[in-house]
Protein backbone atom coordinates (compact mmCIF):
# COMPACT_ATOMS: atom_id res chain seq x y z
CA UNK A 1 0.00 0.00 0.00
CA UNK A 2 1.54 3.35 -0.95
CA UNK A 3 1.55 6.36 1.38
CA UNK A 4 -1.72 8.11 0.45
CA UNK A 5 -3.55 4.79 0.45
CA UNK A 6 -2.22 4.02 3.91
CA UNK A 7 -3.91 7.15 5.19
CA UNK A 8 -7.11 6.45 3.32
CA UNK A 9 -7.13 3.06 5.04
CA UNK A 10 -7.84 4.73 8.40
CA UNK A 11 -11.62 4.83 8.78
CA UNK A 12 -13.54 8.10 9.19
CA UNK A 13 -10.38 10.23 8.97
CA UNK A 14 -9.58 12.99 6.49
CA UNK A 15 -5.92 13.85 6.27
CA UNK A 16 -5.55 17.61 5.80
CA UNK A 17 -3.04 17.23 3.02
CA UNK A 18 -2.29 19.50 0.08
CA UNK A 19 -5.26 18.21 -1.87
CA UNK A 20 -7.76 19.02 0.86
CA UNK A 21 -5.96 22.25 1.71
CA UNK A 22 -6.32 23.48 -1.85
CA UNK A 23 -9.89 22.24 -2.24
CA UNK A 24 -11.04 23.76 1.05
CA UNK A 25 -9.09 27.02 0.87
CA UNK A 26 -11.99 29.45 0.54
CA UNK A 27 -14.32 27.45 2.78
CA UNK A 28 -11.69 27.57 5.50
CA UNK A 29 -10.89 31.23 4.94
CA UNK A 30 -14.61 31.99 5.26
CA UNK A 31 -14.56 30.24 8.65
CA UNK A 32 -11.40 32.13 9.60
CA UNK A 33 -13.15 35.44 8.92
CA UNK A 34 -15.54 34.62 11.77
CA UNK A 35 -12.80 35.37 14.30
CA UNK A 36 -13.95 39.00 14.08
CA UNK A 37 -17.16 39.89 15.93
CA UNK A 38 -18.31 42.25 13.15
CA UNK A 39 -18.00 39.43 10.63
CA UNK A 40 -19.92 37.04 12.85
CA UNK A 41 -22.70 39.61 13.02
CA UNK A 42 -22.72 40.11 9.27
CA UNK A 43 -22.80 36.37 8.66
CA UNK A 44 -25.65 35.78 11.12
CA UNK A 45 -27.60 38.71 9.69
CA UNK A 46 -27.60 37.29 6.15
CA UNK A 47 -25.72 34.05 5.65
CA UNK A 48 -26.11 33.85 1.89
CA UNK A 49 -24.96 37.38 1.21
CA UNK A 50 -21.97 36.92 3.49
CA UNK A 51 -21.03 33.59 1.92
CA UNK A 52 -21.04 35.16 -1.53
CA UNK A 53 -17.90 37.07 -0.60
CA UNK A 54 -15.93 33.82 -0.61
CA UNK A 55 -15.38 32.00 -3.93
CA UNK A 56 -16.18 28.54 -2.61
CA UNK A 57 -18.15 25.93 -4.57
CA UNK A 58 -21.92 25.73 -4.39
CA UNK A 59 -21.60 22.36 -2.69
CA UNK A 60 -19.35 23.83 -0.02
CA UNK A 61 -21.74 26.72 0.43
CA UNK A 62 -24.60 24.25 0.88
CA UNK A 63 -22.76 22.40 3.64
CA UNK A 64 -22.50 25.67 5.56
CA UNK A 65 -26.16 26.59 5.09
CA UNK A 66 -27.26 23.07 6.05
CA UNK A 67 -24.83 22.73 8.98
CA UNK A 68 -23.48 19.61 7.35
CA UNK A 69 -20.36 19.37 9.51
CA UNK A 70 -19.13 16.12 8.00
CA UNK A 71 -19.76 17.41 4.48
CA UNK A 72 -17.57 20.44 5.19
CA UNK A 73 -14.70 18.16 6.18
CA UNK A 74 -15.24 15.96 3.14
CA UNK A 75 -15.01 19.03 0.91
CA UNK A 76 -11.71 20.27 2.30
CA UNK A 77 -12.81 21.92 5.52
CA UNK A 78 -10.48 21.57 8.47
CA UNK A 79 -11.92 21.14 11.95
CA UNK A 80 -9.92 24.04 13.41
CA UNK A 81 -11.54 26.29 10.84
CA UNK A 82 -15.06 24.83 10.86
CA UNK A 83 -15.04 25.01 14.67
CA UNK A 84 -15.03 28.80 14.29
CA UNK A 85 -18.32 28.52 12.42
CA UNK A 86 -19.40 26.17 15.22
CA UNK A 87 -18.48 28.75 17.86
CA UNK A 88 -20.33 31.45 15.94
CA UNK A 89 -23.44 29.27 16.11
CA UNK A 90 -22.88 28.42 19.79
CA UNK A 91 -21.74 24.84 19.24
CA UNK A 92 -18.90 23.17 21.13
CA UNK A 93 -16.27 20.91 19.58
CA UNK A 94 -18.17 18.03 21.17
CA UNK A 95 -21.39 18.94 19.40
CA UNK A 96 -19.55 19.03 16.08
CA UNK A 97 -17.82 15.72 16.81
CA UNK A 98 -21.13 14.06 17.59
CA UNK A 99 -22.66 15.44 14.42
CA UNK A 100 -19.76 14.33 12.21
CA UNK A 101 -19.84 10.83 13.60
CA UNK A 102 -23.61 10.60 13.17
CA UNK A 103 -24.50 10.49 16.85
CA UNK A 104 -26.87 12.50 19.00
CA UNK A 105 -24.89 14.84 21.26
CA UNK A 106 -25.99 12.96 24.41
CA UNK A 107 -24.99 9.58 23.02
CA UNK A 108 -21.65 10.95 21.93
CA UNK A 109 -21.07 12.53 25.36
CA UNK A 110 -21.94 9.22 27.05
CA UNK A 111 -19.51 7.37 24.82
CA UNK A 112 -16.75 9.82 25.75
CA UNK A 113 -17.55 9.55 29.48
CA UNK A 114 -17.28 5.78 29.14
CA UNK A 115 -13.71 6.18 27.86
CA UNK A 116 -14.13 7.36 24.30
CA UNK A 117 -14.57 5.64 20.98
CA UNK A 118 -12.57 2.40 21.20
CA UNK A 119 -9.46 2.18 19.06
CA UNK A 120 -10.19 -1.50 18.53
CA UNK A 121 -12.06 -1.85 15.28
CA UNK A 122 -11.20 1.72 14.28
CA UNK A 123 -7.63 1.38 13.10
CA UNK A 124 -8.03 0.13 9.58
CA UNK A 125 -10.61 -0.40 6.89
CA UNK A 126 -8.72 -3.23 5.25
CA UNK A 127 -7.28 -4.87 8.38
CA UNK A 128 -10.63 -4.65 10.12
CA UNK A 129 -9.25 -4.17 13.63
Amino acid sequence: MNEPNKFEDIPGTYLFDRKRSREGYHLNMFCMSLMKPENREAFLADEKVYLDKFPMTNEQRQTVLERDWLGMIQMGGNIYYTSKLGATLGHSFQYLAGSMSGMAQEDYAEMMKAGGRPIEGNRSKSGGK
Partner: protein
Amino acid sequence: MARLIAGLATSHVPAIGAAVDLGKTQNDYWKPLFDGYEPARKWLSEVNPDVVILVYNDHASAFSLEIIPTFAIGVADEFPPADEGWGPRPVPVVKGHAELAWHLSESLILDEFDITIVNEMPVDHGLTVPLSITCGEPDEWPFQVIPLAVNVIQYPPPTGKRCFDLGRSIREAIATYEEDLKVVIFGTGGMSHQLHGERAGVTNREWDAKFLDGLTRDPMGLTKIPFLEYVREAGAEGIEMVMWLIMRGALDDQVNEIYRHYHVPASNTSTGLIILENEGT
Protein backbone atom coordinates in the same frame (compact mmCIF):
# COMPACT_ATOMS: atom_id res chain seq x y z
CA MET B 1 23.56 31.89 33.16
CA ALA B 2 20.07 30.77 32.19
CA ARG B 3 19.24 27.28 33.45
CA LEU B 4 16.63 24.93 32.00
CA ILE B 5 15.57 22.87 34.95
CA ALA B 6 12.46 20.96 33.96
CA GLY B 7 9.85 20.15 31.37
CA LEU B 8 6.11 19.76 31.65
CA ALA B 9 3.79 18.30 29.04
CA THR B 10 0.05 18.73 29.09
CA SER B 11 -3.02 18.56 26.91
CA HIS B 12 -4.47 21.92 25.91
CA VAL B 13 -8.13 21.10 25.25
CA PRO B 14 -10.27 24.24 24.75
CA ALA B 15 -13.07 22.79 26.90
CA ILE B 16 -10.66 22.75 29.85
CA GLY B 17 -10.22 26.48 29.41
CA ALA B 18 -13.96 26.93 29.16
CA ALA B 19 -14.44 24.94 32.39
CA VAL B 20 -12.08 27.36 34.14
CA ASP B 21 -13.63 30.45 32.59
CA LEU B 22 -17.18 29.33 33.44
CA GLY B 23 -16.35 28.23 37.02
CA LYS B 24 -17.13 24.54 36.41
CA THR B 25 -13.88 23.00 37.59
CA GLN B 26 -15.51 21.52 40.70
CA ASN B 27 -18.51 19.86 39.09
CA ASP B 28 -18.76 16.08 38.71
CA TYR B 29 -17.51 16.08 35.15
CA TRP B 30 -14.44 18.25 35.64
CA LYS B 31 -13.39 17.68 39.29
CA PRO B 32 -11.40 14.46 38.71
CA LEU B 33 -9.41 16.16 35.97
CA PHE B 34 -8.71 19.34 37.93
CA ASP B 35 -7.90 17.46 41.15
CA GLY B 36 -5.12 15.82 39.20
CA TYR B 37 -3.75 19.24 38.22
CA GLU B 38 -3.27 20.36 41.83
CA PRO B 39 0.12 18.67 42.39
CA ALA B 40 1.41 20.19 39.14
CA ARG B 41 0.35 23.67 40.23
CA LYS B 42 2.05 23.16 43.57
CA TRP B 43 5.22 21.93 41.88
CA LEU B 44 5.30 24.83 39.43
CA SER B 45 4.74 27.47 42.10
CA GLU B 46 7.61 25.96 44.09
CA VAL B 47 9.89 25.88 41.07
CA ASN B 48 8.79 29.45 40.37
CA PRO B 49 10.37 29.82 36.91
CA ASP B 50 11.27 33.19 35.46
CA VAL B 51 10.43 32.12 31.93
CA VAL B 52 8.42 29.31 30.35
CA ILE B 53 9.11 28.32 26.77
CA LEU B 54 5.65 27.19 25.73
CA VAL B 55 5.56 24.84 22.75
CA TYR B 56 2.07 24.65 21.29
CA ASN B 57 0.27 24.81 18.01
CA ASP B 58 -1.77 27.68 16.74
CA HIS B 59 -5.24 26.40 15.74
CA ALA B 60 -5.90 28.75 12.82
CA SER B 61 -5.86 31.82 15.06
CA ALA B 62 -2.65 33.81 14.57
CA PHE B 63 -1.93 31.99 11.33
CA SER B 64 -4.29 30.71 8.65
CA LEU B 65 -3.82 29.02 5.31
CA GLU B 66 -2.39 32.35 4.12
CA ILE B 67 0.85 31.55 5.89
CA ILE B 68 1.87 28.32 7.62
CA PRO B 69 5.18 28.45 9.50
CA THR B 70 6.64 25.13 10.60
CA PHE B 71 8.28 26.66 13.68
CA ALA B 72 7.46 30.22 14.83
CA ILE B 73 8.91 31.98 17.88
CA GLY B 74 7.13 34.96 19.40
CA VAL B 75 9.62 37.73 20.22
CA ALA B 76 7.12 40.40 21.28
CA ASP B 77 6.68 41.90 24.74
CA GLU B 78 3.02 40.88 24.87
CA PHE B 79 0.67 38.37 23.26
CA PRO B 80 -3.08 38.98 23.56
CA PRO B 81 -5.53 36.07 23.91
CA ALA B 82 -7.10 35.26 20.50
CA ASP B 83 -10.77 35.45 19.60
CA GLU B 84 -11.50 31.93 18.35
CA GLY B 85 -15.12 32.62 17.50
CA TRP B 86 -16.57 33.06 20.98
CA GLY B 87 -14.59 36.13 22.05
CA PRO B 88 -11.11 36.10 23.64
CA ARG B 89 -10.68 34.06 26.82
CA PRO B 90 -10.92 36.27 29.94
CA VAL B 91 -7.34 35.58 30.95
CA PRO B 92 -4.37 37.92 31.46
CA VAL B 93 -2.34 39.13 28.52
CA VAL B 94 0.71 36.90 28.10
CA LYS B 95 3.99 38.72 28.74
CA GLY B 96 6.89 37.67 26.57
CA HIS B 97 10.62 37.70 27.19
CA ALA B 98 11.83 39.44 24.06
CA GLU B 99 15.56 39.23 24.80
CA LEU B 100 15.62 35.50 25.45
CA ALA B 101 13.20 34.88 22.57
CA TRP B 102 15.49 36.74 20.17
CA HIS B 103 18.51 34.92 21.56
CA LEU B 104 16.75 31.60 20.98
CA SER B 105 15.74 32.58 17.45
CA GLU B 106 19.26 33.66 16.53
CA SER B 107 20.90 30.66 18.07
CA LEU B 108 18.45 28.24 16.42
CA ILE B 109 18.78 29.81 12.97
CA LEU B 110 22.57 29.75 13.16
CA ASP B 111 22.22 26.08 14.22
CA GLU B 112 20.27 25.41 10.98
CA PHE B 113 16.70 25.51 12.25
CA ASP B 114 14.64 27.63 9.87
CA ILE B 115 12.69 29.60 12.45
CA THR B 116 9.98 32.13 11.64
CA ILE B 117 10.34 35.16 13.93
CA VAL B 118 7.01 36.72 14.93
CA ASN B 119 6.24 40.08 16.50
CA GLU B 120 2.43 40.14 16.23
CA MET B 121 0.70 37.04 17.46
CA PRO B 122 -2.56 36.52 19.33
CA VAL B 123 -2.33 33.27 21.31
CA ASP B 124 -5.18 30.77 21.32
CA HIS B 125 -6.28 27.96 23.66
CA GLY B 126 -3.20 25.97 22.69
CA LEU B 127 -1.11 28.41 24.72
CA THR B 128 -3.52 29.81 27.30
CA VAL B 129 -5.12 26.53 28.46
CA PRO B 130 -1.79 25.10 29.66
CA LEU B 131 -1.31 28.33 31.64
CA SER B 132 -4.76 27.93 33.22
CA ILE B 133 -4.02 24.27 33.97
CA THR B 134 -0.74 25.03 35.70
CA CYS B 135 -1.48 28.43 37.27
CA GLY B 136 -5.22 28.62 37.86
CA GLU B 137 -6.72 32.10 37.63
CA PRO B 138 -4.15 34.70 38.71
CA ASP B 139 -4.46 38.41 37.86
CA GLU B 140 -1.14 38.15 36.03
CA TRP B 141 0.62 35.05 34.81
CA PRO B 142 3.45 34.41 37.28
CA PHE B 143 6.22 34.12 34.66
CA GLN B 144 7.15 35.39 31.23
CA VAL B 145 6.30 33.16 28.30
CA ILE B 146 8.08 32.54 25.00
CA PRO B 147 5.53 31.10 22.55
CA LEU B 148 6.92 28.49 20.17
CA ALA B 149 4.22 27.61 17.65
CA VAL B 150 4.49 24.41 15.61
CA ASN B 151 2.46 23.52 12.55
CA VAL B 152 0.61 20.27 13.21
CA ILE B 153 -2.56 21.06 11.23
CA GLN B 154 -1.42 21.21 7.63
CA TYR B 155 0.28 18.03 6.47
CA PRO B 156 3.22 17.64 6.81
CA PRO B 157 4.07 18.61 10.36
CA PRO B 158 7.74 18.42 11.30
CA THR B 159 8.89 14.88 12.07
CA GLY B 160 9.21 13.68 15.65
CA LYS B 161 12.96 13.51 15.20
CA ARG B 162 13.13 17.09 13.92
CA CYS B 163 11.12 18.20 16.95
CA PHE B 164 13.42 16.36 19.33
CA ASP B 165 16.47 17.89 17.64
CA LEU B 166 14.92 21.34 17.92
CA GLY B 167 14.67 20.70 21.65
CA ARG B 168 18.35 19.77 21.74
CA SER B 169 19.23 23.05 20.06
CA ILE B 170 17.01 25.00 22.47
CA ARG B 171 18.92 23.40 25.33
CA GLU B 172 22.20 24.65 23.92
CA ALA B 173 20.79 28.11 23.27
CA ILE B 174 19.58 28.47 26.86
CA ALA B 175 22.96 27.38 28.17
CA THR B 176 24.63 30.27 26.36
CA TYR B 177 22.28 33.01 27.59
CA GLU B 178 24.07 35.21 30.06
CA GLU B 179 21.30 36.48 32.30
CA ASP B 180 20.57 34.34 35.35
CA LEU B 181 17.13 32.93 34.57
CA LYS B 182 15.26 29.85 35.68
CA VAL B 183 13.56 28.33 32.64
CA VAL B 184 10.94 25.59 32.29
CA ILE B 185 9.76 24.25 28.95
CA PHE B 186 6.19 23.12 28.27
CA GLY B 187 5.19 20.73 25.50
CA THR B 188 1.46 20.78 24.90
CA GLY B 189 -1.35 19.13 22.92
CA GLY B 190 -2.59 15.55 22.82
CA MET B 191 -3.05 13.00 24.11
CA SER B 192 -4.92 10.56 21.87
CA HIS B 193 -7.84 12.33 20.26
CA GLN B 194 -9.60 12.92 17.00
CA LEU B 195 -11.89 15.89 16.52
CA HIS B 196 -13.14 15.32 12.99
CA GLY B 197 -14.83 12.78 10.76
CA GLU B 198 -16.81 9.67 11.59
CA ARG B 199 -14.00 8.46 13.85
CA ALA B 200 -14.20 11.55 16.10
CA GLY B 201 -13.81 10.69 19.77
CA VAL B 202 -11.34 7.86 19.34
CA THR B 203 -8.96 7.35 22.27
CA ASN B 204 -6.15 4.89 22.96
CA ARG B 205 -5.25 4.42 26.60
CA GLU B 206 -2.52 1.84 26.01
CA TRP B 207 -0.78 3.92 23.37
CA ASP B 208 -0.90 7.02 25.58
CA ALA B 209 0.61 5.08 28.51
CA LYS B 210 3.41 3.81 26.30
CA PHE B 211 4.05 7.35 25.10
CA LEU B 212 4.27 8.67 28.67
CA ASP B 213 6.61 5.84 29.67
CA GLY B 214 8.77 6.45 26.62
CA LEU B 215 8.92 10.16 27.28
CA THR B 216 10.66 9.51 30.58
CA ARG B 217 12.77 6.49 29.71
CA ASP B 218 13.18 6.15 25.95
CA PRO B 219 12.58 9.42 24.12
CA MET B 220 14.80 8.35 21.24
CA GLY B 221 12.40 5.47 20.69
CA LEU B 222 9.51 7.93 20.45
CA THR B 223 11.32 9.94 17.77
CA LYS B 224 10.98 6.92 15.48
CA ILE B 225 7.17 6.86 15.57
CA PRO B 226 6.00 7.62 12.03
CA PHE B 227 3.25 10.12 11.26
CA LEU B 228 0.97 7.28 10.15
CA GLU B 229 1.16 5.64 13.56
CA TYR B 230 0.20 8.85 15.36
CA VAL B 231 -2.85 9.24 13.14
CA ARG B 232 -3.90 5.61 13.25
CA GLU B 233 -3.23 4.90 16.92
CA ALA B 234 -3.60 8.29 18.64
CA GLY B 235 -6.24 9.86 16.39
CA ALA B 236 -5.65 12.41 13.66
CA GLU B 237 -5.24 15.25 16.15
CA GLY B 238 -2.98 13.10 18.37
CA ILE B 239 -0.13 14.20 16.11
CA GLU B 240 0.09 17.20 18.48
CA MET B 241 2.22 14.96 20.67
CA VAL B 242 5.27 15.55 18.46
CA MET B 243 5.40 18.86 20.35
CA TRP B 244 6.08 16.95 23.57
CA LEU B 245 9.27 15.73 21.91
CA ILE B 246 10.55 19.31 21.60
CA MET B 247 10.17 19.62 25.36
CA ARG B 248 11.86 16.28 25.90
CA GLY B 249 14.73 17.08 23.54
CA ALA B 250 15.48 20.18 25.58
CA LEU B 251 15.99 18.11 28.75
CA ASP B 252 18.92 15.93 29.70
CA ASP B 253 19.13 12.31 28.61
CA GLN B 254 18.36 11.20 32.15
CA VAL B 255 15.39 12.82 33.85
CA ASN B 256 13.35 12.22 36.95
CA GLU B 257 9.63 11.79 36.45
CA ILE B 258 8.11 13.96 39.15
CA TYR B 259 4.43 13.54 38.42
CA ARG B 260 1.98 12.02 35.99
CA HIS B 261 -1.76 12.45 35.57
CA TYR B 262 -4.02 10.82 32.99
CA HIS B 263 -7.74 11.23 32.56
CA VAL B 264 -10.39 10.47 29.94
CA PRO B 265 -12.30 12.44 28.79
CA ALA B 266 -12.06 16.16 28.49
CA SER B 267 -14.68 16.82 25.86
CA ASN B 268 -13.36 14.69 22.96
CA THR B 269 -9.93 14.01 24.30
CA SER B 270 -7.66 11.81 26.39
CA THR B 271 -5.71 14.14 28.61
CA GLY B 272 -2.29 13.70 30.12
CA LEU B 273 0.18 15.71 32.14
CA ILE B 274 3.74 14.79 33.00
CA ILE B 275 6.57 16.59 34.79
CA LEU B 276 10.20 15.73 34.13
CA GLU B 277 13.16 17.27 35.95
CA ASN B 278 16.77 17.24 34.88
CA GLU B 279 18.76 15.13 37.31
CA GLY B 280 21.20 17.87 38.25
CA THR B 281 18.49 20.20 39.51
